């Protein structure tokens, strides 16, 4: 095994006296697709918030590419190469789809506090934006106001925004929520394709997707990882069956 791109060491998070994350350990390989599953309230999204800098851990370490990132600001974590989507769609609802993606593309291109040239004259930004639009099949909706898109289209848009910075680690929080079967199938293929050569961490409730996409799966219950392994190992793990999967997989 190569060196892990992202390591969680005894990660803990408390809100007041309630400990939500109770010592999570994980080593994510640079090209691994890793899913978190677990019942509602297990702390899957909280782990994402800790890694992405939305929350600071109470204790423990998060190491990305040999560097401690726990407690850093969301923007510095994103700039290092960890990009995330949100469980509740988090886009710019009153701006056009194109504008949403362009905002995501601008920063990695080095354009932010720049008021000396016109954004629509920047061919690279436009091409990258159009390429991402095409990738998530939204090119026909480029001029639509993002808030008026169908829910599943908004999810696709957010995936594209997350990928715009060409991150080394991608965190997707329930990307398929609210999608039809056809859309789910397409998005699963899309996720496979766009995360090639990157590490992916995925929270998803669609078990079919989870088991088909993932190289490894971690089962989180009450803030603790009760099992980590290949889909096959997880499927056959007795304590996982008891705690979570039940008849769903059997």
């Amino acid at each position, binding site marked *: 095994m190569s060196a892990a791109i992202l390591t969680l060491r005894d990660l803990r998070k408390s809100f007041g006296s309630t400990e939500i994350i109770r010592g999570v350990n994980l080593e994510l390989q640079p090209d691994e697709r890793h899913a978190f599953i677990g019942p509602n309230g297990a702390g899957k999204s909280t782990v994402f918030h800790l890694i992405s800098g939305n929350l600071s851990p109470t204790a423990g370490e998060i190491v990305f590419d040999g560097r401690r990132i726990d407690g850093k*600001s969301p*923007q510095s974590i994103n700039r290092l190469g960890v990009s995330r989507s949100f469980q509740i769609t988090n886009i710019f609802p009153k701006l056009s789809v194109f504008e949403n993606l362009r905002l995501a593309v*601008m920063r990695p291109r080095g354009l*932010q506090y720049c*008021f000396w040239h016109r954004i629509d004259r920047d061919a690279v930004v436009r091409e990258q934006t159009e390429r991402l639009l095409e990738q998530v099949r939204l090119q026909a909706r480029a001029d639509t106001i993002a808030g008026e898109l169908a829910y599943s289209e908004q999810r696709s848009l957010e995936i594209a925004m997350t990928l715009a910075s060409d991150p080394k680690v991608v965190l997707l929080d329930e990307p398929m929520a609210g999608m039809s079967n056809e859309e789910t199938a397409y998005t699963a293929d899309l996720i496979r394709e766009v995360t090639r050569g990157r590490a992916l961490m995925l929270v998803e409730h669609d078990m079919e997707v989870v088991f088909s996409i993932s190289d490894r799966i971690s089962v989180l219950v009450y803030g603790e990882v009760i099992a980590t392994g290949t889909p096959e190992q997880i499927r056959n793990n007795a304590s996982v069956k008891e705690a979570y999967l039940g008849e769903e997989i059997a």
Partner: protein
Amino acid sequence: MVALLAVPLVLSPGLVNAAIQMLIAALFASAFNLLCGQAGMLSFGHAAYFGVGAFATVHAMNALGGAGLLPTPILPLAGAVGGLGIGLIAGWFATKRTGTYFAMITLAIAELLHALAPHLKGLFGGEAGVSAMRMPALGLTFGSTTQVYYLTLLWVLASVVLLYLYTLTPMGRLTLGLRENGHRLRFLGYDTHKVSVLVFAISGMFSGVAGGLQVINNEAANYVLFDPGLSAAVVLNTYIGGVKAFLGPALGASLMTFFGYAISDVTQSWLLYQGVLFVLVMMFMPAGLAGLLGAARALRDRHGTGALLPVLVLAAAAALLLTAGTAFVVEMLQRIFSQDYRALAGANAAAPWPPVKLLGRSWPPATLTTWLAPASAVAFGAALAWLARRRLHALERRRERDASGAESTTTAEVAGGAV
């Protein structure tokens, strides 16, 4: 554009001076709207940056023994630097918070300056303020209102063009992103605090230019520049003009400044009218005057000017009658409640109230006929407004009928062709 250039040639000096005020207010509102409309940060203390720009300019004029730090035509640069500097400092603190807390911090900073200024004699000249002289430069004396007008026009146009170009840059797009969803921006790698401080400072900078122009026009600056009234006026002007359109705030500010100039001589209730107007705009056309123009254009495109003309005439007449009726009542009441009149009426308690002079006539306040005039104006106005509404609805219905009619014709033709 031509009209703006021709102002000093056709108008009296008093009106040219009013035009200068309108231009300055337009720039101030545009600078404010960068922060308020585009970045979504509502500042309640923008007089601070206008005022600091003004004082920076007045000191630049007096520097070097009155010769001036800069030649007169580029003096507003001093205002720009002043506004930018104070904007960076105040913005760094204020943008640590958003929403209500942001607004409160901006209010507090402006109040701080307003309270401090009269005590700092060296900097703000105490209660008397600081005065200065426009020095000749480039062969121009800047002694006449006309020359000051053209200087102001040049600076305001250049600033507004720059503010517009700003919206087309990466930073300008980022500003909209900040308004829509600052949280998401952070997870795209942007430092939103830095972005906010920059937007704040740029808004402060252009407000400072407006303040500088004011000083060049008045040749004086006084701590009253920090008055909360000025901070409030720019908020009202901007919203009345419409925050969503780039030129909306400039439109609102120039119109309100003009009304202030034209009407404050005629009535003491100008502030009341301003307030009523603001409430009406917020209630019935939250997109402001610019939104009203946009809606009118959309209607014209739908129905054509010819069909729309009666509706517009009716609506205008209704607005006129409603305004006239309301204004009459306000003016009557204002006179009846004035101290002079109270003294007059109280002098002889037994006699009926003496008549009130308004519009060159005497109106006895205790008779029905006096109040019949405004009441009928309001009633007619309301009736006309109702008629205008009905006509508009009729137009909409006819359009829908035409649309479905056209559809059924084509179906019939197709059916005929098939036969």
